């Protein structure tokens, strides 16, 4: 019965990635290789971030919100952006269109993030007899994370891959990219500084991810019009 729960939470956490891959034209163009390369880049980025965190951060005994530590964590979070830049620009992708490239990279990025951060707790925790809502919320968080990764990849591809952008939209693009990149810091501030509980945080993440996705979609569409 508890494996049942594990199965439920697993399909909630990893199902959307598979569905996204199969539902969109990504599967038709067989962009699995791109996604896997993006996942590997994410792993390396995560390792680099870990090393930086271990070196520069000092562990606080209390669970309180320390602005300096959070600032440092946010700065290190920009390594994420650097990794995404590397995945989008430096890796040799096969000849796929820009809009598919960012989707594949974002998908691979989000999948690696889910596996790394959520598979182990799920395996250890959801199989026990004890029932908690935590793993369902974790799955919802993974969904929000997928949308956020896709929006960040879209904005990233707009920033670095598209050469002719309407001048007025550039600051908006950079601003949105900044917001999406600092989303982890914002959530940790809400969790520790304001003391929000898990359901509230997950709700906030879902809402903001959908909002950012909508905005980046509009920006992408707007940038696409001049080139067509």
């Amino acid at each position, binding site marked *: *019965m508890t494996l*049942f*729960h594990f*199965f*439920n939470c697993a*399909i*909630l956490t990893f*199902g*959307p990635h598979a*569905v*996204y891959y*199969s*539902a*969109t*034209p990504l599967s*038709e*163009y*067989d962009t*699995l*290789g791109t996604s*896997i390369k993006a996942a*590997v880049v994410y792993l390396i980025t995560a390792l680099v971030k870990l090393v930086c965190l271990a070196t520069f951060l000092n562990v606080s005994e209390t669970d309180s919100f320390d602005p300096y530590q959070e600032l440092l964590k946010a700065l290190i979070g920009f390594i994420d952006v650097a990794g995404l830049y590397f995945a989008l620009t430096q890796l040799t992708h*096969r*000849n*796929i*269109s820009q*809009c598919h490239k960012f989707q594949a990279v974002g998908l691979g990025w989000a999948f690696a993030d889910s*596996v790394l951060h959520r*598979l*182990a707790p799920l*395996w*250890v*925790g959801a*199989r*026990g*007899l*004890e*029932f*908690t809502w935590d793993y*369902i919320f974790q799955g919802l968080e993974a969904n929000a994370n997928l949308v956020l990764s896709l929006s960040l990849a879209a904005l990233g591809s707009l920033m670095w891959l598209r050469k002719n952008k309407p001048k007025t939209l550039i600051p908006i693009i950079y601003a949105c990219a900044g917001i999406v990149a600092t989303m982890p810091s914002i959530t940790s501030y809400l969790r520790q500084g304001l003391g929000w509980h898990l359901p509230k945080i997950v709700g906030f993440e879902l809402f903001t991810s959908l909002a950012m996705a909508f905005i980046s979609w509009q920006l992408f569409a707007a940038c696409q019009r001049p080139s067509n």
Partner: protein
Amino acid sequence: MANCPKKVQNSKPSSVLIDPVYSSMITLLIIVMACVEICDAVTVVDVYRLVQYDIGGVPFGSRLASLNHHAGSSLFSSSSGAAADLSRTVLILPVRELNLTFIKEYIAQRKPLGGLLLLLPPAFSPNADSVGGADHDSVKDLMKEVLVELEQLLIHANIPYPVYFGFEDDGINTVLADVKKNDATGQLATATTGGYKLVVAVPEPKKIASPTIANIQGWLPGLKADGDSNQLPTIAIVASYDTFGAAPALSVGSDSNGSGVVALLEIARLFSILYSNPKTRGRYNLLFGLTSGGPYNYNGTYKWLRSLDQRQRETIDYAICLNSIGSFNNDLWIHVSKPPENAYIKQIFEGFSNVAEELGLKVGLKHKKINISNTRVAWEHEQFSRLRVTAATLSELSFAPELLQSTGGLSDNRHFVDEASVSRRVKLVAESLARHIYDLKGKDINIFADNSSLAVNPSYVRSWLDLLSTTPRVAPFLSKTDPIIMALKKELADHTIEVNVQQEVLDGMFTFYDSTTGRLHIYQVASVTFDLLLLLVLGSYLIVLFSFLVITTRGLDDLISLFRRPPSRKVKTA
């Protein structure tokens, strides 16, 4: 949007390379994680199992150990007056609110039950603050009576499901309150409705192969006169140190017979002081015996006596057995099996009552004839009497206990023993013995006077009582070199010489089974319907997501075409 031609060949080698790495990494991770113990229960408590034993092949006690059922809180469901089907439910019953008649009927009619968890008040825990003394209230006494009755009921019944004892604490109380609330709605917790699940994961109980009993003896040799000391008469002081109770892991037996053991050790200490100086050494040998196997018809005493050399046994003038001398009341009884008119008995009794009068205690004499054909040995002195050795038992119990009664069970803990009482009785016995040894009859001499170097040491009494009250001592579960046996041996060796531990196998009539403690995990589980519902919701979410994505990226026609492939062929050919 540019249409890229599919290049299948290029992607294959890279994915073939990466996939095994990925999958093996994940497999390794999974294996590592599987080894991590899952301990995420609502609460985890130590529980102690009801004893499981056979007498002559007849089974008694709880016959099962592992537990894995849902929790319930009462014998009856609220909706109907008749008892509900509880064969897959574990009942959590606090002993404070227990209705003994219901339990008696339930067990007597052998109704099926998944398991029973009895919650004892925290004051009865061996690790509770031992604030014994005089502040025992009527509530505790009432509780003691209930526990005694419950214990006798449980150990003489054959119960085919696991029975565990636990102590009330905050975690378990909240769980119980929750379970009661759920039961009040009339719905028993089962696999389909969710609720709390109690799990005790222990292996199946096995027979204990050869349960050993260890008798410890020590000598204080008397002063040799002109002849050799082998012909000096001996006085034996004996106490059995092991216990038996409904929960072997909780049977500390502070009064039965912790008080007797402590008294014996203190008497040994006092006489060793006297005997260390040849000028004050008496003309009697003193033999101290700490015997095991007390609850089982004093099997240990039987074996010990037969191991003694016949000549040694014949030199025993008389033996004093100590059994339960620690309670708060002042009455004491000397139990004998030779008729009271016997000269020796009269002598012993007069000696004791004279001293008792001076100390303000009351001692009575009780006579119980031995029936040789009856295997039941109610008092330790009967084992001596069967070998024609004069003996008496000093006890606060006024009549002979039945088999496995008054053997130091659940209710016998530190709160019900008064160390001042024990000290007074020690003084009584020591003084009576000394007057006999040194032939001081009739003279008003106080050998073990308070504030002298031979005074009874109250902190010695207290520390040994405290130690014994935290050590369960059921003989079959003590190993050959158990710490308590070694401690008693060392203590006796401090005061006496020729200390010897005799290891014997317990009489074959009694068989015991292991597994006396366990850890109870209480989980809050969701019902199967919840999981199915969740699966339904997630399935529909994924389907909606899929359709949404197909519609937005490829168009509605593509979605419809996914479901209408076969008919489209027919349309084409036609």
